[in-house]
């Protein structure tokens, strides 16, 4: 167990690290049809244990439906889901106590205070004994910074406070898997940073996290793995670093003779365009071929830089390509 001792995970016991490399979630040929709409179509997915798994996709791409099927909230039309090594839905009774989830926004009763709402959640939480409910609720409120507003009715909470209460419910007890669907919705920048800290703490404690978000920079900052959904199909998934590498990032060439460089590069069959003071090679033959050609043509090259695409670029490329 890591000794980082963050408050989020202080109570975490010995449940996380001894989990073998069994994936936190495994999905095979999953399909969900609502009427004539195919929401999720033939998705295969492995969420490695201990990973922070970012689920990306444009609105309506099936992220939430996929997450809901993972948690047994929606029945798949066909296909299989395993969560923490147990089948869904048959194994859910044993699995769900180890899973914290914030799905489709926080669900609470407007007429109850934040604390009362959380108490109600805690009362149904199998991992808490009756005497632990009160302290666990107070801890959770403290952890998400809601303690001062705990006595106020949920009705009067701001969007960010509601989101925090939802997070508090998901993290009421130490979990092996935490599923956060758009956790930064309605949060201010400070709240967004806190979510990032929470996710890092969870990861440090050995828990797996599945995170869906439309804030690509957030995902890039915290995720080790990503899956990109488009129109219900999985169009990319894997380790974030590898995915980014696989996208040809191109080369940035600093030169005082951009026209000459462009001519030379295009003659070699490369796709290149002017970029600022230099030239950007997007695609084409292997790099050494191009550089040799530049040198042969006497183009003064002042600098070469491999351009690594960021997640936003990857996402845009993957999701905006034609079908």
């Amino acid at each position, binding site marked *: 167990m890591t000794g980082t001792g963050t408050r989020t995970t202080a109570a975490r*016991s*010995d*449940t996380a690290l*001894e989990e073998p490399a069994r994936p936190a979630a495994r999905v095979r040929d999953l399909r969900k049809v609502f009427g004539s709409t195919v929401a999720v179509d033939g998705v295969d997915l492995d969420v490695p244990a201990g990973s922070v798994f970012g689920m990306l996709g444009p609105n309506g791409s099936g992220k939430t439906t996929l997450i*809901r099927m993972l*948690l*047994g*909230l*929606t*029945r798949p039309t066909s296909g299989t889901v395993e969560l923490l090594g147990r089948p869904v839905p048959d194994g*859910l*009774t*044993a699995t*769900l*106590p*180890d*899973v914290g*989830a914030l*799905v*489709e*926004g*926080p*669900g*609470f*009763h*407007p*007429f*109850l205070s934040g604390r*009362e709402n959380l108490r*109600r*959640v805690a*009362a*149904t*939480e*199998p*991992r808490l004994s*009756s005497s632990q409910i009160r302290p666990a609720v107070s801890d959770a409120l403290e952890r998400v910074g809601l303690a001062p507003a705990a006595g106020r009715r949920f009705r009067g909470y701001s969007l960010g406070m509601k989101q925090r209460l939802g997070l508090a*419910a998901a993290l009421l007890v130490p979990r*092996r898997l935490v599923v956060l669907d758009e956790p930064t919705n309605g949060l201010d920048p400070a709240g967004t940073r806190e979510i990032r800290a929470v996710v890092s703490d969870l990861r440090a404690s050995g828990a797996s996290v599945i995170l869906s978000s439309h804030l690509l920079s957030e995902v890039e900052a915290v995720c080790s793995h990503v899956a990109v959904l488009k129109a219900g199909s999985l169009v990319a998934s894997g380790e974030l670093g590898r995915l980014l590498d696989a996208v040809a990032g191109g080369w940035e060439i600093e030169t005082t003779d951009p026209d000459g460089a462009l001519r030379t590069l295009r003659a070699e069959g490369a796709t290149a365009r002017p970029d600022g003071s230099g030239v950007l090679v997007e695609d084409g033959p292997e790099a050494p071929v191009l550089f040799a050609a530049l040198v042969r043509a006497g183009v003064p090259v002042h600098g070469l830089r491999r351009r690594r695409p960021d997640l936003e670029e990857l996402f845009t490329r993957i999701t905006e390509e034609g079908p």
Partner: protein
Amino acid sequence: MTAPAPPRSVSWTRLLGAELRWVLRRPRTLVMLALLAAVPMLMAIGIVLSDRPRRSLLSEVAGNGLTLPVAALSILLTLLLPLAVAVASADAIAGESQHGTLRGLLLAPVGRLRLVAMKAFGVLVVAALAVAVVTLSGVIAGWLLIGPPAVPGGGGALLTMSGSVLPLSDAAGRLLLVAGWTLVQLAAVGAVALAVSAFTEHPLVVLSSVLGGLILFGVLAAIPALEPIHPWLITTGWDAAADVLRDPIPLDALWRSTLVAAGYLVAGGAVLVARMLRRDA
């Protein structure tokens, strides 16, 4: 190292306690109970102020305080008590779904069957409280405004419609009987309302179904050509409450209406369970 401790499931008492706490903290539950409690009081005041003797269940109450709770239950059963149960049923599943809290319960996880039991318990508690409040309020209002449980010159507590006089213990027994009978009828309404609630996330759908159903049954009961189905309408048996004021009690109608209610209870319960086992949340 040891495997993680197997999750204990939450005890029934804790689960039902949480549901009870939720039901009783809901402001509308308390407002509804207060309004229901006011009805027998208003009836008593009306009877005291009225000087037109008419042969009706209400006029039987005059000078005979213990009949007031029976009259109140019988009158409220036609609309307001079923409505209170419908409100509770609407909140129990459709309302939870609307607020996104049904998801939380399923993710906790409260098993789906346990969830049904927990919700049915909550509705039953509201129904029982409603019946208890009306009965107690009726007894108190009858005692204070109409007269103590003593038949003038009779040496008993309750004058029946058949003319006999019953001692207090018998009278109390009959009050319990009519209260229990009313609760069974309301449980049947609750089961059907919960079944509707399991299909929607709009509490209003549940309310309008129950209200619409009661009105529809009233219309059907008024069409003579439909006489063959009249015995199977749950509302048909609802005038049996007054039977507890006869001596001896004619049990036929009470018994028959209880069986019909049991039929609705089983049918509603079956649909409810079947739906909740598959429902998306």
